[in-house]
């Protein structure tokens, strides 16, 4: 056992050493690489936090519905509140990198599809990344499925174009996008340019009539109204509908019945029920807010608004969008960079996929080796691997035939849902909610509904299988 513990520790330090070497050597080669390294180390921190706290957005509602366990809902709300608090400070300084998304029913539908997918896949988008770092082959398949689905979905038209409402087509063409972008073709292009972009952007700060950079807008609007109050209400609902009725709670109450004091105590116990998740949520929330600050600071230092011009200055101009930009959110994000590396690969294999909005207009398909967001995702996997190795939880796990099927289906649904919602559990829910963007909650409601559907299916599926196993057993 000691030998394997030493081996795990050695591998953990090899991974850390590798990332450190990449950062140092790349900086020595060109100081602009520090921009990519900033993404790398924040990704590394995210990976460590996620693995330590078993932090998975899928688990939040899936485990609530499946086995009545609220720990992840609590963890996510803690992380969201902290992220929102730090972000409110950052936003007030005018240094936020965040852009709110259009709000509408499409966010909820996207969340629904994504929610079903994440239950099938066994983890959300960020969850699948960190579990890949634990050695989980099924999760790696999920990541591949998300990536390939997205890269394909954003560029297909043909018969799918026949499903596009005429109003979307007309509105997309009226946007007069650059000539190289064929906004009038492709289902996703017409969905984006012809429908989504026409929807309003609604932030809580604006709803109460204040700007984002004002104290009232940032703290009262986005933080208090947009996050704290809904989070407290959500957790109260969880407490009353799931936790309050559980056996252990009621046994400890005894025959005297339940008082308001008991309910306060029960609510607080629920909040503190998983220290690991709460600690992970704490660090995650703070790191997410800090990343915005750091990236914006680097942009100011280098005189750029996006990593695209930076990459061009470094001599990397392949795969930049028609506007000279690449995907550079400035905060934690998953899924787009996964779509990008597959998009890059498809392009190298001969697929002309720079004519769509997703790759061609803003995000580009730079080489994954110099894509800042890809550095973040790879380091997330690395950070999770380090944490798993240090706690001797790392194990290469070959997927079972059954889990391969769920992984591919789940990943595909997540890929579709994230393109429709313009983000995943991180980009479309966690970040948007924390930043006071109403579309975040709409995506979240869809995710909850999707998780419920996914759990109902798996409950039925596993009950069938267990019934067969139990058939010959006498209890």
């Amino acid at each position, binding site marked *: 056992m000691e030998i394997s513990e030493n081996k795990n520790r050695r591998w953990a330090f090899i991974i850390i050493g590798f990332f450190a070497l990449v950062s140092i050597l790349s900086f020595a080669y060109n100081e602009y690489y520090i921009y990519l390294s900033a993404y790398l180390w924040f990704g590394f921190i995210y990976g460590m936090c996620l693995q330590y706290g078993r932090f998975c957005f899928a688990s939040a509602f899936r485990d609530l519905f499946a*086995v009545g366990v609220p720990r992840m809902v609590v963890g996510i709300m803690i992380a969201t509140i902290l992220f929102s608090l730090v972000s409110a400070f950052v936003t007030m300084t005018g240094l936020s990198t965040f852009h709110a998304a259009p709000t509408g029913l499409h966010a909820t539908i996207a969340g629904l599809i994504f929610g079903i997918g994440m239950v099938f896949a066994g983890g959300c988008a960020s969850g699948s990344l960190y*579990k890949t770092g634990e050695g989980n082959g099924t999760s790696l398949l999920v990541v591949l499925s998300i990536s390939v689905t997205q890269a394909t979905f954003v560029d297909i038209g043909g018969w799918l174009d026949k499903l596009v409402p005429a109003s979307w087509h007309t509105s997309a063409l009226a946007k007069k996008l650059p000539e190289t972008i064929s906004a009038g073709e492709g289902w996703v292009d017409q969905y984006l340019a012809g429908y989504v972009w026409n929807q309003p952007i609604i932030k809580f700060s604006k709803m109460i009539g204040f700007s984002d950079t004002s104290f009232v807008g940032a703290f009262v609007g986005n933080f208090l109204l947009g996050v704290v109050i809904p989070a407290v209400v959500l957790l109260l609902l969880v407490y009353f509908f799931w936790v309050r009725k559980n056996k252990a709670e009621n046994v400890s109450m005894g025959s005297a019945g339940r008082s308001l004091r008991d309910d306060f105590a029960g609510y607080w116990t629920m909040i503190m029920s998983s220290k690991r998740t709460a600690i992970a949520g704490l660090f995650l929330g703070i790191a997410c807010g800090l990343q915005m600050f750091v990236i914006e600071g680097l942009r100011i230092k280098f005189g750029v608004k996006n990593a695209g011009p930076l990459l061009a200055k470094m001599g990397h101009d392949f795969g930049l969008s028609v506007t000279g930009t690449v995907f550079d959110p400035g905060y934690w994000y998953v899924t787009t960079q996964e779509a990008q590396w597959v998009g890059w690969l498809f392009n190298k294999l001969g697929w002309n996929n720079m004519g769509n909005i997703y790759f061609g207009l803003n995000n580009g398909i730079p080489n994954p080796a110099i894509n800042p967001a890809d550095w973040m995702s790879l380091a997330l996997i690395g950070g999770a691997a380090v944490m798993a190795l240090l706690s001797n*939880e790392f*194990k290469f796990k070959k997927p079972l035939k059954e889990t391969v099927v769920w992984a591919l289906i789940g990943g595909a649904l997540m890929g579709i849902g994230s393109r429709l919602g313009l983000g995943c559990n991180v980009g479309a829910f966690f970040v948007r909610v924390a930043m006071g963007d109403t579309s975040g909650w709409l995506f979240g409601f869809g995710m909850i509904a999707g998780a419920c559907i996914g759990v109902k299916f798996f409950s039925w599926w596993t009950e069938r299988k267990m019934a067969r196993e139990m058939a010959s057993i006498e*209890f």
Partner: protein
Amino acid sequence: MAMKFEKIGEAQYALDVTGYVCPHPQLYTKQVLKKLWRGDVVKVMFDNPSSSESIEAMCAAEGNMIVEKNMVDGRFTWKIKKG
């Protein structure tokens, strides 16, 4: 290897969900615990770390006791006594 559940002795059972990701380990564990009599023990084998938190929380909520916990190289073997 697919999910396996068997009786290994008087009031002793084994559930092997090695290789499965969430939510399968916790769903199968829940189904087994529903069927057991008070005092029965089930040995649950899994290798998905995040399921450990869910199973532990589920047992605490339902009044089931985890009487033994082992983890070697990412493989968890827990014994749960039905409360």
